[in-house]
């Protein structure tokens, strides 16, 4: 499957243990994502979803197995920082923004590692905040924003360097149902409009259901059946990609 050109994320036999092997957070996980796809990973708490996402984001080194992103083995990469800054956009659940920075400044954080000038950083941040519907809140600090607004800022920040992939770990975890739905809609709009690949992790199967395809995880493994179901859904996703909404 890894030979197929439209596979952007290809995880093979990934193992990650903690506590000197006593905890097997990932126990031979296999997982593929196609270009432009919106995939959700769901499963009970502690089944290894975050660990998998962190491994794909190169935040954590697996014990064994391979992770290829756009055909490149990321554990072999020397410059993980530039991969994290440019290759992916990350969204987390909680306390995600720096409290002393305004919305605009928060969105600029990933841009410090690029060659953009101060002015260009600010312009780009404001453009992204308008995209997520916060054009009037650029100077607000996190404490002056609602939970839903904060998560929109985090989404804008994930887009800062135009990454081809967005990884979201429980992005609606601390939001009420209305704000959750809005955040989800925004993520989907972004995925279609910016033609990015979106991997969303949620223990809540209703949230996960918003994706083109959902995979199930249990005890550090991807449920093989759920992955097999994917091809039918994939065609729909490919079709919707051609009609951007944002």
């Amino acid at each position, binding site marked *: 499957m890894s030979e197929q050109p439209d596979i952007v994320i290809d995880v093979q036999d990934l193992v990650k243990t903690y506590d000197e092997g006593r905890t097997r957070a990932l126990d031979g996980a296999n997982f593929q994502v196609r270009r432009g796809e919106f995939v959700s990973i769901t499963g009970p708490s502690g089944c290894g979803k975050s660990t998998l996402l962190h491994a794909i984001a190169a935040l954590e080194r697996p014990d064994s197995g391979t992770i290829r992103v756009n055909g490149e083995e990321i554990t072999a990469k020397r410059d993980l920082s530039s991969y994290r800054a440019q290759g992916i956009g990350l969204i987390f659940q909680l306390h995600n923004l720096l409290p002393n*920075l305004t919305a605009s*400044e928060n969105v600029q954080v990933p841009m*410090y590692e690029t060659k953009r000038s101060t002015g260009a950083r600010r312009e780009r941040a404001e453009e992204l905040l308008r995209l997520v519907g916060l054009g009037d809140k650029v100077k607000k600090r996190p404490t002056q924003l609602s939970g839903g607004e904060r998560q929109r800022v985090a989404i804008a920040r994930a887009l800062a360097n135009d990454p081809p992939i967005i990884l979201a770990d429980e992005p609606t975890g601390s939001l009420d149902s209305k704000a959750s739905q809005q955040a989800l809609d925004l993520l989907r709009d972004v995925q279609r409009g910016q033609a990015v690949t979106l991997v969303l992790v949620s223990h809540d199967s209703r949230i996960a259901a918003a994706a083109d395809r959902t995979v199930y995880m249990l005890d550090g493994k991807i449920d093989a059946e759920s992955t097999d179901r994917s091809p039918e859904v994939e065609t729909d996703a490919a079709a919707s990609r051609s009609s951007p909404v944002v």
Partner: protein
Amino acid sequence: MTFILFILSNLLRQKIRTGLTVLGISIGITTVVALGIFVNSAKAATEELILAGGADFTVAEAGVADMTFSSLTTEDLALLETYDEIEHVSGVELAISKVGANAYFFQIGIDAGDLPFFDAPLVEGRLFGADATDEIMIGDRAADQLDAGIGGTVEIRDIPFTVVGIYDTGTTSLDAGAILPLAAVQEYDSREGLVTLAYVTVRDGTDIDALTDRIKAENEGLATLAGIDDVGAVDQGIEILDAVNLGITILAVFIGGIAVMNTMAMAVFERTREFGILRALGWRTRRILQMVLGESLLLCLFAAVFGSILAVILTQLIVLFPTVSAFITPQYTLDVFLRGLAVGIGVALLGAIYPAFRAARLSPAQAIRYE
């Protein structure tokens, strides 16, 4: 937002902690700078004294603990006069005693015959007479402090002297003191036939270094003083001051360093999750290091500026005491402020290196999971 403003905004998150740390470091820097100002001022005052009256160099007894303990005999002075390069030798007796409010009233006893070779421009009155024993010339600052004018009386060790002249040399201790007949000082000091120093003027074109080297080589008991660097030979005071200054500086760096380490370690610890997020968003370890070191440097730079200002204020307050202003005029030279700045930078680096490396070495995934 520029990176430096980002660093500043991190410091402003904990205003009280930042403020207290700045204050603490400032006090250390104030100590270092103020002490530096005094050491330099004391050196300048000593240097002025060895070259007082326009002397090319001064000769004193070698190996004494304090310049004022030096004793030269009439034979020593005669011996100096045998050098061809030497134009004139003035033997002077130095004394310090309480006069008026000034506990360190400085007295130079000099022979009337040597006065033409001792440059002390009169602003009022005349030189004391050739045979006078009870006449005195006082400096303009002494005139102010004692509120004495021409014809007035100044008592030194209960002996009354009549003021006949007021001079202004520009040398602090001299201008706050007096010049009077050598015999009078020798008498109340009970040092007949002895002088403290010999002020030497040389003929035009003389190589002073070569001459002083020769004098020292040919006369084991004599020390020559042509500048502040020579003072160590006859005065341990300056050397002690230098040593104390160095000791306090090192102490300030260590105490300050520990204070900064504590502050920065706390700042790093409580922001563990944020460092994880920054790393996850693609920040390099180098940038994390720069951020933590930058916070520490900025903190200490504030302290250096604040501490230096405090030091100047403190110095100005201290010289309000006549006892201090009698022999010191504050010397605000660049080197003491650079020393303060160096202490600030030293403290910043010493205090931040460990927290900065800890922050940079955090595993991003662990840091993100950290609550």
